[in-house]
């Protein structure tokens, strides 16, 4: 009965590699998000999709590419990983983007780049 799930939970990889993180929600929500939480616990939005369309794209290196194959999934692909990409990445979803739409978060994916 998990609402928002992410895989993998942990990801350890070498610099320069390409990796993907998957997110799925079974809440029937229209909007999904990716957040990055750095080592200082600062949480910042990266992307948001509404009905499979990109609606928020913060200042993120273009090595990061989100993909939404359907409303229930939002994957994050990262090319040429760098040390500074090490963080916890959280996926979230909400019914929409209007007032009153609560965001529900996934458990996070801890990415460590060596």
């Amino acid at each position, binding site marked *: 009965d998990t609402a*928002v799930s992410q895989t993998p939970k942990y990801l350890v990889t070498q610099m320069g590699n390409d990796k993907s993180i998957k997110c799925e929600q079974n809440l029937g929500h229209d909007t999904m998000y990716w957040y990055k939480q750095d080592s*200082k*616990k*600062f*949480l*910042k*939005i990266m992307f*948001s999709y509404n009905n499979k369309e990109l*609606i*928020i794209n913060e200042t993120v290196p273009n090595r990061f590419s989100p993909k939404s194959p359907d409303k229930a999934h939002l994957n994050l692909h990262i090319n040429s990983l760098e040390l500074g990409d090490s963080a916890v990445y*959280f996926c*979230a979803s909400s019914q929409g*983007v*209007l*007032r*009153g739409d*609560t*965001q*529900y*978060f*996934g*458990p*996070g994916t801890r990415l460590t780049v060596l």
Partner: protein
Amino acid sequence: AQRVTQPEKLLSVFKGAPVELKCNYSYSGSPELFWYVQYSRQRLQLLLRHISRESIKGFTADLNKGETSFHLKKPFAQEEDSAMYYCALKGTGFQKLVFGTGTRLLVSP
């Protein structure tokens, strides 16, 4: 521009003591304010929101538009309240959720 400030990185109290986690915001319109909590190695979860005016786990928060604040309060802290607390703001219309830098609450026995 939307901005959320949580001035305290760490707040350490003893069990049974009152707690107030500060949150100030900057937004020219009418914001929607939230408190999210993240227990150790767990996902972020919504604690409460100003439009609901509810009390969750003994916590309350009142939106003060004059002082642009949304402080989180609990009269008697419990050890299980130890966690990271984030204040967040959403503007009107089609707006992203902006988080503060978070405050770690540590409740000691």
